């Protein structure tokens, strides 16, 4: 029920629909809840709807921070 996955928008269709690619598998979903969507954007999809766009800059920053936090503990005995 809560499962939602990131997917890339590959084609915008009429009637607030779009085709997304999930690891190469194509699926038609509703994009009625998203504004200013473009091909190449990544969205989180859930029960056939795009809930939100993924911010690539924030995603990169989070990964960087995760690496830093991970290194902080390296000097500690397990």
């Amino acid at each position, binding site marked *: *029920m809560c499962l939602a996955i*990131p997917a890339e928008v590959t084609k915008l269709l009429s009637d607030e629909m779009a085709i997304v690619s999930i690891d190469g598998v194509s699926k038609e979903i509703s994009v009625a*809840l998203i504004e200013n969507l473009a091909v190449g954007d990544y969205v*989180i999809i859930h029960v056939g709807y795009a809930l939100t766009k993924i911010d690539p800059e924030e995603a990169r920053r*989070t990964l960087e921070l*995760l690496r830093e936090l991970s290194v*902080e503990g*390296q000097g500690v005995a397990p």
Partner: protein
Amino acid sequence: MKYADEYRDKEIALGLAKTIRAETHLERPYRFMEFCGGHTHAISRYGLEDMLPNNLRMIHGPGCPVCVLPAGRIDMAIRLAERSEIILCVYGDLMRVPGSQGASLLKAKARGADIRMVYSTIDAIRIAEENPEREVVFFAIGFETTTPPTAVMIRLAEKKRLSNFSVFCNHVLTPPAMQNILESPDIRSIGRVEIDGFVGPAHVSTIIGTAPYEFFAEEFGKPVVISGFEPLDMMQAILMLVRQVNENRHEVENQYSRAVTRDGNLRAKEEVSDIFELRDQFEWRGLGQVPYSGLKLKRAYAKYDAEVRFGMNELRVDDNPACECGAILRGVKKPVDCKLFGTVCTPETPMGSCMVSSEGACAAHWTYGRFRDHQQRRAS
């Protein structure tokens, strides 16, 4: 899968575990509730509990919509589906949820009721268009994540002038349930667990944003960290909670900034507020009646409200007295504390709702956690 695989890196996870271990104070407990079933599932699936210090406990919360749906609402849906003119459309997770006396939608379907599993509300609209001579009812369930799709569906039904379509609405809200866990007088009398902080839901928060948790954090003095569903997201959120506890802070922090903003999805929130209004109260399995925690269709949309359209009466059903789902949903008990767990109650033959959904605490423990019980038994 981009935006998923990079957040599952084992080496970074091990480093994060060391950082958490280094920063937790041994003399005090850390008790964090992950509200959302998706987080419960991720903790079990990726074995995160094994990476955390012994004095840090994750408590599974009531954030699994299938698990908190009371048996009476399942019975109401079954009665509806048994009417010959009705096609009932449901999300697949609901099919095996127990109603009263072992009833379920799956058994009703086997007896001939026209119940159809759908992936999306768009499918339900399509079924209504294809069957103009039948009444199509969508069994709407879920937190703030699935409510906007239901709202869009009603807007579509109106646009297409569908006169054979309605919704059995069971949508519920996250913040009132979190509040209820901490302050309800019922909870005080039936037992509750001490909680030092909350891991806030990921996808619910993409819709509602981080702002609704601010009052909660301030009022109850509890830190809240909104977290993504990947294992590294959760490890980082736990570290952020540890730091807040250590520094005696109680703020709302957003670990899932790649998908969640302070205001959330304004368009989705508008769709919801156009069509839904608050119920005075709604029954949750395990929490009882929770004030202002459920949604119903506004009067202007009464023709799409199955409860009005078909004169559905509210049914109240007591859970199986031996089933501990209620206490497990509140974090008071663990799955292994229930004498039904793993005996008569398994994912193949679920007696309680926590065993039905893969996000339920019992199903997650059954699938990924039982080896730990075995190890503990051998150690003692």
